[in-house]
């Protein structure tokens, strides 16, 4: 091979379909119709189902019918509860986003357009299955009927915050809801979920674990460690990758989406991988139930790629119009998860527009009432925080001398600032 005959090397750099000002274009995405992707037995060997990583599990078709082998055949009652949880999540997000804009807290992250991902899963898991979420699965807490006021106290870092105002808003922790403390550091939760599942299996328990991370986050080494441990020990765990097409300003191509799917990562480790319509609550339910059954019957882990779209900015700290076409949201080929589940319920005669509108009003009221209650405990930066001394608690179980000294120092600083008795926050 004579090298002088060779052209110079070139570097390929991924390019999203559309940048600001350009026409949104999802034509490169091949959307399989609902019902066509087969459903193997949940105990089948992963080697027999590699194609699923390149398929797309969908239950709800464009007419709102539930079709195909993955149809979980849920009762109308369960469907309505799922719809309600999704709508409540949306209402909650909406209010808290505005609260941040009103200066009531420092930060917020919506899950708009991705509600099915967490709520479909929460309904398919047992309530005591342990969830290791990223920051966009507030829907799990809501599906598990967690107290909205408790969540808001956390968002406001106020004196009612069980987490003592220590964490950035939305970094919940709710052990009683089997919901692990959210980390600011991406993807650390994924090997943790595997470790929890390994422990559960080692103990002969029946509870399984599940984790969630974004498609961008799959690049972190922790993700790989998790999949390696999961395949080695066949841990009873469901690993969810929420492919909402964007990290912050970086589209999924910078995590490898140009060359294959994220479900295909599972193939690389010889574990089951499902690629599903993440805007289809029934597909999410069905896939999660399948993976949970697989895990619970000692057939090992499953990775589920939820193909969805982040309809809002990454967080309150960014403006997506600076890096993507503003048309994208409306052109997203898999529609809106709330609208789709609603259409299904209407199609089967179990719901109607009027009930939906009434429910939306009711949920908005519920959220508003919760916000009012939470705000009574204070909003960020107005002094109604947990007592100063709590800062030094929980670093260790017992407080060592140096933290006691530092705590005393802080209290003496407080005295300088607010020398009069009763003055200032405590």
């Amino acid at each position, binding site marked *: 091979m004579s090298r002088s005959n060779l052209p110079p090397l070139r*570097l390929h*750099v*991924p390019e999203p379909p559309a*940048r600001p000002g350009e026409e949104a274009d999802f034509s490169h995405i091949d959307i399989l119709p609902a019902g066509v992707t087969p459903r193997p037995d949940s105990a089948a060997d992963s080697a027999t189902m590699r194609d699923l990583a390149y398929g797309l599990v969908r239950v709800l078709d464009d007419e709102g019918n539930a079709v195909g082998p993955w149809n979980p055949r849920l009762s109308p009652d369960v469907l309505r509860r799922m719809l309600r949880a999704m709508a409540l999540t949306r209402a909650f997000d909406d209010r808290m986003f505005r609260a941040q804009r009103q200066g009531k807290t*420092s*930060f917020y992250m919506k899950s708009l357009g991705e509600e099915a991902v967490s709520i479909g899963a929460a309904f398919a898991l047992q309530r005591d299955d342990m969830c290791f979420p990223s920051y966009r699965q507030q829907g799990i807490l809501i599906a598990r009927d967690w107290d909205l006021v408790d969540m808001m106290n956390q968002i406001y*870092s*106020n004196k009612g*915050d069980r987490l*003592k*105002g*220590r*964490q*950035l*808003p939305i*970094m919940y922790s709710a052990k009683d809801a089997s919901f692990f403390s959210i*980390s*600011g*550091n*991406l993807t650390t939760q994924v090997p943790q979920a595997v470790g929890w599942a390994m422990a559960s299996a080692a103990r002969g328990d029946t509870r399984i674990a599940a984790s969630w991370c974004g498609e*961008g*986050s799959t*690049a*972190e*080494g*922790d993700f790989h460690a998790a999949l390696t441990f999961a395949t080695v020990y066949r841990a009873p765990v469901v690993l969810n990758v929420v492919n909402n097409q964007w*990290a*912050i*300003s*970086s589209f999924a191509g*910078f*995590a*490898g989406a140009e060359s294959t799917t994220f479900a295909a990562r599972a193939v690389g480790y010889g574990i089951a991988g499902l690629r599903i319509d993440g805007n289809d609550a029934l597909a999410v339910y069905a896939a999660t139930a399948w993976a949970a059954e697989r895990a619970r019957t000692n057939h090992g882990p499953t990775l589920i790629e939820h193909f969805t779209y982040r309809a809002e900015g990454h967080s309150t*700290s*960014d403006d997506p119009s*600076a*890096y993507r076409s503003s048309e994208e949201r409306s052109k997203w080929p898999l529609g809106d998860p709330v609208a789709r589940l609603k259409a299904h319920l209407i199609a089967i005669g179990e719901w109607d527009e009027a009930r939906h509108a009434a429910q939306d009003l009711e949920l908005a009221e519920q959220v508003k009432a919760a916000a009012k209650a939470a705000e009574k405990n204070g909003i*960020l*930066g107005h002094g109604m*925080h*947990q007592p*100063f001394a*709590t*800062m*030094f608690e929980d*670093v260790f179980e017992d407080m060592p001398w*140096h*933290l006691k000294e*530092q705590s005393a*120092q*802080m209290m*003496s*600083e*407080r005295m*300088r*600032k607010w020398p009069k008795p009763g003055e200032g926050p405590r």
Partner: protein
Amino acid sequence: MPDAPATNMNMIEAINDALSVAMERDLDVTVLGEDVGYFGGVFRATAGLQKTYGKTRVFDTPITECGIVGVAVGMAAYGLRPVPEIQFADYIYPALDQLVSEAARLRYRSAGEFPMPITVRSPFGGGIFGGQTHSQSPEAIFTHVCGLKTVIPSTPYDAKGLLLAAIEDNDPVIFFEPKRIYNGPFDGHYDRPVQPWAKHPASLVPSGHYTIPLGKAALVREGQDLTVLAYGTMVHVALSVVEELGVDADVVDLRTLMPLDIETIESSVKKTGRCLVIHEATRTGGFGAELSALVQERCFYYLEAPVERVTGFDTPYPHSLEWAYFPGPIRIGMAIEKVMKD
């Protein structure tokens, strides 16, 4: 200061300008990191660079800090001069092995075959309600690692000159940018209006190329009675407290923690006989410990009082109690009282 025309810049603009000057002058300078390309970085420090210098010199990367630094090491082995960004210093830990075991060690272990001219930029420090994972000051982890330099600017002027020097340096540099003062100096009074950089003399940034040598501190205020050692945001807080209290103090802006400008420190402390060390990082094992140890080792017989440290507390940076945590004017003031006592 060179004779080039100067404009007022905030620290982000000065950093952006430094990167642009470096890329313009040297084809090997290559920027990479999460969101640094099309978008220009979450703090906009790399805005416009990809447009000017192209997609194979300014890379949006996958979200793997280990990979970002690992790839930068490989690029440096090829002969490039990579300038990776870690989005927040709190997220540098996954890159630690590539930094400590590779970037910092390669010149040594290859006996000079593979020098590593890499400058890792990363916003650090608190004061922006970032909670415990957007507020950390992990500089002491890096100053303990032989083979790494650590640089922390405190003004736009310094940021540009130091960043250019760091990029031109043939060794790996950790360049921590105090994000609290990206947009304006901060005197520590969180309840007073924020000043923009424009009113500060060091926001006048010459266009074009200039460097500030690594390893040289700046004596930003001269006095006789006390030496204050600080860097980054804390330089401004220190200056303001010293003025408020009317203490006749030397205030030393270290600028480079490794290698340290020991001469400036020593001569100041030998003059004043008292020393206060300030940083925002947690106290135990912070860089202040090294400063305190060095000062007492080298100036023991000149010291009239113990070297005092003012630092963040040994807890994570709490979200709602941010200002109770921050080593602000009251804490510094109390320490000054103590160190000046007898």
